């Protein structure tokens, strides 16, 4: 069973790569845009650390690590989560989701992997490079345990972000203009450039429980620089499992309410 999912994933990956290979110019545009967005972050850091030595006890190299994680996770979101969910909302709107539902595979799996923006891999690569540079600056030897913590935090964060988007996209079965909420997510995600501990409590609360920005950026970065306590990691992992189950349930519930505008 799971072999079939892997085969499907590979097939969709192939399809998306083939589609993008027709537009090779986009690759250079994407490199340019990724570098631009990275320099945007670096310039911001330069201006800030021109006036101070630490930002709320975060040293420049630690903030750099955070910036790398921000770029990396942003890359994953833009690579597959956002394009898939946007397509889902569009198809619900236009009633063309019927064609996907008719296929003899799990619909949630299909809508979650079929649309990829392959060139966004640039952001992921750049993010990893920045994380590497930051770690070199920190001079700390990163042990296997710390790396594992980082990976767990990263995967859990990704799962929470995915579930969040799926639930939002599922709302489009009832509401029409949900895509505007995406704009909000992009805006709120910006807040992840900086450690959430600097924000006032209401904003910190929003970024942690209402919109999953903290789990996607600050917490993996904390894991990376060795400042994440085990209980927090455990809590995040449990929360990830919970949201995955919840979003699955909500998706199935939503499907029962889908009438198909075209049919």
């Amino acid at each position: 069973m799971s072999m079939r999912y892997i085969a499907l994933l590979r097939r969709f990956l192939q399809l998306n790569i083939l589609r993008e290979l027709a537009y090779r110019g986009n690759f250079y545009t994407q490199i340019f845009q990724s570098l631009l967005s990275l320099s945007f972050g670096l310039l911001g850091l330069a201006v800030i650390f021109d006036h101070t030595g630490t930002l709320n006890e975060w040293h420049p190299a630690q903030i750099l690590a955070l910036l790398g994680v921000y770029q990396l996770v942003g890359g994953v979101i833009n690579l597959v989560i956002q394009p898939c969910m946007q397509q889902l909302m569009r198809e619900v709107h236009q009633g063309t989701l019927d064609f996907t539902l008719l296929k003899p595979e799990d619909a949630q799996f299909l809508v979650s992997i079929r649309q990829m923006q392959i060139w966004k891999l640039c952001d992921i690569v750049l993010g990893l490079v920045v994380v590497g540079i930051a770690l070199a600056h920190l001079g700390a030897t990163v042990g296997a345990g710390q790396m594992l913590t980082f990976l767990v935090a990263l995967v859990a964060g990704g799962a929470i972000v995915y579930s969040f988007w799926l639930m939002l996209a599922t709302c489009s079965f009832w509401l029409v203009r949900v895509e505007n909420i995406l704009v909000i997510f992009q805006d709120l995600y910006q807040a992840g450039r900086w450690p959430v501990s600097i924000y006032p409590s209401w904003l910190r609360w929003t970024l942690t429980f209402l919109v999953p920005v903290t789990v996607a950026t600050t917490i993996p970065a904390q894991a990376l620089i060795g400042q994440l306590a085990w209980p927090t990691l455990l809590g995040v992992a449990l929360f990830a499992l919970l949201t995955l189950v919840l979003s699955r349930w909500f998706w199935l519930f939503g499907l029962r309410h889908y009438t198909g505008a075209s049919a």
Partner: protein
Amino acid sequence: MRALLAVYRAQLKTSFLMYLQYRASSVLWLLGMILEPVIYLVVWSTIARANGWAVDGYGVGDFASYFLVLLLVNHLTDNWVYYEFEERVRQGLLSPLLLRPIHPINADVAQNLTYKWMMLVVMLPTAGVLALVFHPTAHVTWLSLLLFFSSLVLAIAIRFLVEWSLGLTAFWTTQMSAVLQVYYVALFFLSGQMGPLALFPVPVEILALVLPFQWMLAFPVQLLLGQVDQRAIVLGLVAQAIWLCLSLALMTVLWRHGLRRYSGTGA
């Protein structure tokens, strides 16, 4: 002139009704607009608090008033037409607009003005709430208020023309997202969105002096807060006048040449 006024009245009415339909999405846009200034207000205040409550003479309260006024001015000067231009050109949506016996920019201006007035109803109370949270300090005089409103009008006009011209580049390129991103980065650092330009390295300050960005945003903000000395006020107003002429010329030239490239595909 009278015909134009009638056209505007009709446009204002239709766009008002259109926005009324999508109240929820308008509020969501608003949230997005508030967030960015709040983030940088928090970042700068954090630094100020750690360094004896001030950064180069800017206290925590000064940052609060700077970013709150910036929020309002950014809302009033903001424009989003340039995001739609790619689609207009690619899908041929411009064709019906061209058939009208009036320049398409008028419809955009009318729509933009409606949105600003409508959203001000929500924006002002929001700024009020944020003021309660962040405790801004400012000393506003009648003179600075007068100067503020005149430079605000200029800033709105300049930014609209610059961004409309930016949208027109869709006639030449299909890589609009890259163009817009470059613009966004430049706007963020050079218009004062990230913080008062005085806190930036000198080369950035000089760059900001010759480019249009700060005249579309930071200048009116600092005028209101009395952070500009007399010589700089005159200089700034002159710069705004120059950029108004330049952006008008730019828009006219780009429109004339771009239209020749437009083939109306899809229509």
